[in-house]
Every structure is written in C-alpha cells, then in structure tokens.
C-alpha cells in the first residue's frame, strides 16, 4: 500500500511535468488575466521594480557606505530575484486552494496546479529581467565563464520551487492559517536575507548567512550575473536542499496526495 502510494505520487509529478501544454496555457493565461486592458501589462511590475531599485540604490549605498554603481547592480539583481522568491512562496500557499474548481471537476495530475503557478512566476521573472540587464549594462561587471552556470542555477531554483509549492500547497489546503504564517515569515526573511545588505558587512559573523537557505539560492543566481567568484558552499547547499526537499515532499505527497481533493 505504502509502495503504491509512493508510485502514484511520483507518477503524479512526472505526468504533471509532461503535461506542459496544460500548465503552460494556464500559467500564461493567469499572467494575461492580471494585465489585460493595461497597456504595459506585466511591465508594470518591471517598472515598479525599477523605481524601487532607483530610489533604494543611492540611499542604501550611502547608508552602507558602498560604491554606488556596484551596489546598484547588486541591489537590482537581488530585488528582482527576491520578488520572484516571495511571490512563488505566496502563490505556493494557494496553488491547490485556488485550483479548487479544476480539482473538483476533473482528474488532472495535481502537480499541474503547482507547475501552473511556477510557470506564471517564471514568465513574470523574465519580464523583470529587463531591470537586471539594465543594471548589468550600467555596471559592466567582469562577466566570465561563470555566466554559463546561470541556466543551471535557474533550473535548480525552479526545481526547488516545485517541491516547495507542492508541500506548501498541501499544508495550506489543510490548515488555512499556514498561509498567514508564511506571509509573516517571508517578511522577516526579507530582512534576514542578504538582499539589501552584503554578507561581508557581518564581519566575523559572515558565516551566519550560510544558515539561510534563501541566501544560497540568491547567491547561485546572482553571482554568475555580477561576475563574482563561484561560491562552492552555496552550490553544495542548493544541491543538498534539492535532494532533501524532494525526499521530504515525496514522503508527504505519497501520504496525503489523495486527500487534497477533500481539503480544497
């Protein structure tokens, strides 16, 4: 029984991923739905990110006594990435709840609903990437071979978003307070993660950032873009989190996947 539940969970994820044509259409539609009748569409988000970076860049460069141009690029990349992380975590909470209509009408691999929201956020990230490219063009960091690692970093990031989405989606469908708890935690996480500040600013306590999983994802994504050296610790951490995350997710998904339709 346990065994077959595990197989069902794995095949749910696998057939979910292979139903690209379904979640791509749904994800795209969700982006369109939000921005229909607005001229700039998803670029509104890009603009708001740009304004935020433009205002906070000089301010925090001054506060932290950093070189404005370098800090500017650092902040731009970090903020864009953090927005994606934040939105992904938020949307994970409603991945199943918001798909109640579909879940109760037809049999689809449930992971499709998580992939849909993941795809939506990747589309929005692609729009926001304009800010990143602008920042890089301004600062002209010494880009090298390290840039080749960026696609891998994005892939691992997306892969992790999937297991987080499944786990959080389930937890929030069962216990509705989890959504609120997660929102609070993410606000705290923003300040606890080196988004505005740099790990070096902690001085001899710099090691502490290594305890923060968000930092490692930010680092593997950001460093290639800004021509910083490869951070082996972060890559190892991301690898470890990916494996552990999938194991934990599969255990819970095997056990509770069949209950989701009753919870939403």
């Amino acid at each position, binding site marked *: 029984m346990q065994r077959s539940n595990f197989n069902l969970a794995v095949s749910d994820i696998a057939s979910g991923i292979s139903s690209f044509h*379904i979640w791509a259409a749904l994800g795209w539609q969700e982006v369109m739905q939000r921005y*229909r009748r607005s001229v700039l569409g998803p670029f509104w988000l890009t603009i708001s990110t740009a304004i935020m970076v433009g205002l906070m860049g000089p301010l925090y460069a001054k506060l932290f006594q950093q070189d404005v141009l370098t800090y500017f690029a650092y902040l731009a990349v970090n903020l864009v990435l953090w927005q994606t992380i934040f939105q992904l975590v938020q949307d994970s909470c409603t991945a199943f709840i918001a798909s109640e209509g579909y879940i109760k*009408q037809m049999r689809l691999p449930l992971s499709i609903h998580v992939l849909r929201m993941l795809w939506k956020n990747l589309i929005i990230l692609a729009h926001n990437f304009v800010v990143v490219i602008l920042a890089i063009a301004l600062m002209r960091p010494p880009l090298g071979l390290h840039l080749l690692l960026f696609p891998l970093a994005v892939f691992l990031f997306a892969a992790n978003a999937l297991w987080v989405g499944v786990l959080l989606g389930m937890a929030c469908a069962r216990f509705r307070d989890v959504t609120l708890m997660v929102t609070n935690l993410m606000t705290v996480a923003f300040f606890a993660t080196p988004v505005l500040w740099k790990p070096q600013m902690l001085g001899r306590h710099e090691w502490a950032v290594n305890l923060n999983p968000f930092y490692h994802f930010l680092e593997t994504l950001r460093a290639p873009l800004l021509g910083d050296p490869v951070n082996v610790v972060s890559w190892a951490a991301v690898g470890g989190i990916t494996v552990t995350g999938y194991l934990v997710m599969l255990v819970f998904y095997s056990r509770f996947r069949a209950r989701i339709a009753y919870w939403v």
Partner: protein
Amino acid sequence: MIRAKNLVIEFPIYGVKSRSVKNTVMHAATGGVLASNAADRVVVRALDRVSFEWKDGERVALTGHNGSGKTTLLRAIAGVYEPAGGSIEARGRVASMLSITVGMDENATGYENILLRGAILGLRKREILALVDEICEFSELGDYIHMPMRTYSSGMTMRLMFAISTSIRTDIVLMDEWLSVGDDDFSEKAQKRLMALVDDAKILVIASHSKDIIRNICTRVVHLEHGRIVDAG
C-alpha cells in the same frame, strides 16, 4: 465499463468540534451518514459501500434526494475523489460535464477561451484548432468570438461553453442534470448535439430528477439514499 466494489467516500469535516453539533446533524433528514473515524475526526460518509458494474452501452440515471450522494458518485467516477475504502474503476476516457464553465476567463475572448478550455481538457493545440471552426459555427457567436467574454450575455456564454464541452468525443459521459441551454431554436439544436454526444459515448451516467429524461434516455435507474444504493435498477 465502470465498476465499483464496496466504494466508500468520506468527507472530513474540519472545524466541527462540538459533539452536540455532531449529534444534531446526525439526525438530519438528508445527507450522508455522519461518523467519527479512527482519529476522532468528524467525517461525512457520502458513499457507503457502493458496489455496481455498468457495462458499455448502459445509460445510467442516478436518482435520490439532495445529499444522497449522486454528485459525489459522479465525481468519484471522474477520478476526483480517491476512495476511503473499496475501489472504483472507469475504463475509457471520461468527459466530466459537471460544470462546463470551469476555467473560463471573463476577460479573454471567446476564441481564447476555446483554446484554454481545450488545453484543460488535455487537447493539444492542433487538436483544439481543428475544433474551433465548428465550435464557432455551432455557438452562433459570429464576430463576437473575438470579443472578451465579459461582453457576452449569459446565454451567449452558456452557448459557447456548451459548444466547447460537447465538441469532444469520449467513452464515458458524466452529467449532473441534463444540460439545456439557449432559447427555443438553439435549445433544440443543442439537444440534438448532446444526444449525438451521448449516442457516441459508451456509457452515460446522469444525475437527474427529470422523469422524462430518465424514461427517454436511460436504460437503468439507480436510486441512492444516504450514500447507499437502495435500488440498482
């Protein structure tokens, strides 16, 4: 073929703490049988050890009061609810017509909604495109098909959603009440189309209160009470 063996579907009820509430509901005239499961959670047993075997060619009508388990049984056949006990097996592709407007986007055009709904139903883009012309023609929307659906009258919306849902042929058709849409002229056309769909399907399962529908279409009437089959037809 659809086969169920001792099928049990239970809904956990969260937030029901009070025993007295439980006891009160226990004696309600309609609805499933309430019980507490092992974890002392209150559960509604919506389907209680239901067994049947419906062969290809059967047209099954589900009858019974509100809350007797008709819709739950339809959803179990669609594969939405996994059984708490027993098993259910439906061989063939299932078309769930339980709600034909799921996934509709008011702000998208009719045309975009066809693509979207088609994708949800698992069709590839070229399969959907092959159906588009026919759907547009049947729903009689003309150039409105390129207008956002929020500009449609409710009749137009229903016509389009009906046309999309009935454009795909499947082995098993599930319906919660016979669909009827539109004014007189359209309604007649719609009935023909729905009949053609049902004729092509191997099995129809319909929850219905309409005596006419049951008499004219169905080959078997299954009566449910409190989540149990009391008359298997």
